[in-house]
């Protein structure tokens, strides 16, 4: 169990962002985390990465509690936030070196070259991040998330802003990483779920409305596409 979430609840004031959700994921699986805007996807991810504390319930990553052992959690998680915040005045390699230094990597130069190769940043690696297009910035974010070879990857809409050619490459990369790691990714693109995910969790208004393998969900809704399933599960209460 690399991620174990039990009765996780987060209140923003009186509003429940997520309401007693429970799920777990295993290594070697890519879990798609789906839901309409404002359903609580990003909130859940922020709790899992130890950025914000939950109101109640527990969450563990690789056996470490996200509140009491947050340093261990942060060491074993690679996180790409939805907004992909970057220091725009830094050079690509400089920012990767900065992250590598935080994680105290032993051979940062070699590892930086590896992730630049993996994420296809090669042609843009000598530019400042501020000069990059959105798709390339997204790759920098992804490179930062995987640079310390984490066991768990939490990717909040990793493919937003990528062009179709880049999409194929990044999905391929996520699949490869998913062979050995635990990956949770959120997305609004249902073809992407078909293309990369093994398991699917659908969340609506803070509650889990479906949690199964991709095949299981499709079998349960005979003949429907992922898109139709998503709409039928999440639109009823809106």
């Amino acid at each position, binding site marked *: 169990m690399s991620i174990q979430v039990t009765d996780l609840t987060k209140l923003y004031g009186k509003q429940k962002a997520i309401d007693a959700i429970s799920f777990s994921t295993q290594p070697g699986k890519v879990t798609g985390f789906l839901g309409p805007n404002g359903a609580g996807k990003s909130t859940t991810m922020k709790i899992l990465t130890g950025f*914000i504390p939950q109101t109640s319930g527990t969450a563990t990553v690789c056996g470490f509690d996200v509140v009491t052992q947050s340093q261990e959690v*942060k060491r074993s998680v690679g996180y790409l936030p939805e907004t992909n*915040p970057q220091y725009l005045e830094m050079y690509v390699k400089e920012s990767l070196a900065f992250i590598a230094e*935080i994680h105290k990597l032993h051979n940062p130069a070699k590892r930086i070259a590896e992730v630049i190769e993996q994420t296809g940043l090669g042609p843009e690696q000598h530019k400042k991040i501020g000069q990059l297009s959105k798709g390339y910035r997204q790759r920098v974010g992804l490179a930062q998330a995987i640079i310390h070879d984490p066991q768990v990857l939490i990717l909040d809409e990793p493919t937003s802003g990528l062009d179709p050619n880049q999409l194929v490459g990044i999905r391929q990369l996520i699949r490869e990483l998913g062979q050995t790691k635990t990956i949770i990714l959120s997305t609004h693109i249902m073809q992407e779920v078909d293309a990369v995910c093994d398991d699917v969790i659908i969340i609506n208004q803070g509650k889990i409305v479906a949690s199964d393998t991709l095949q299981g969900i499709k079998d349960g809704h005979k003949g429907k596409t992922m898109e139709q399933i998503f709409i039928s599960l999440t639109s009823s209460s809106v």
Partner: protein
Amino acid sequence: MVAYITIGAFLLVLGLFLWVFPESSILEYGYSGLDSLFSTAPYLFMFLIPAVTMRSLAEERKEGTFELLATRPLTDWQIIIGKYLACLLIVLFALLPTLIYYYTVYTLGNPVGNIDTGAVIGSYIGLFLLGGAFVAIGIFASSITNNQIIAFTIAVFLCFFAFSGFDSLSQMLSLQSYGLENFGINEHYQSISRGVLDTRDLLYFLSFIAVFVATTKTILGGRKW
């Protein structure tokens, strides 16, 4: 970039005050001392240090890059102390070039070397501690908002009040007997400037800095944004 401009502005204004403007000029003053340096610098620091610190946390929050830092294996303490030391280093770099003024006055003195070196060393230590206190205020102000201008304004006000506000209050008739001036930075700064490094003054500055840094930690830990 901000740092270079701030250091440049600090040195330029200080140079004008010390050598060009007649009212505060060392040359017009007639005595070989750096008194006007140490009486002018706190007021320059009051504006320039908030300019350096206003960005530190406010911008991280606004741009979301704080999430980048906070989800890495770093504690909030490491982030805050890192920011604090970075800003303090800029203050130190602004102070270092002014050492040349000491040499100038030392040489201009009649006879040569007629300057109270002990007082100068004390004053530099005092000025550095004062800078440290202002940086702590600035980092704190930067943590309570994600707007840099607000952070700057609050920091300038707090610096001014902490520096001379208590002095002024203590002169109010009804408050005269309470020794309010002891809460202010100026009282302790003056005391160190005399060249006597009293542990009480040192303790004052260190606890002043600690209080503001600890408050910043509490605010960041709340994650109310």
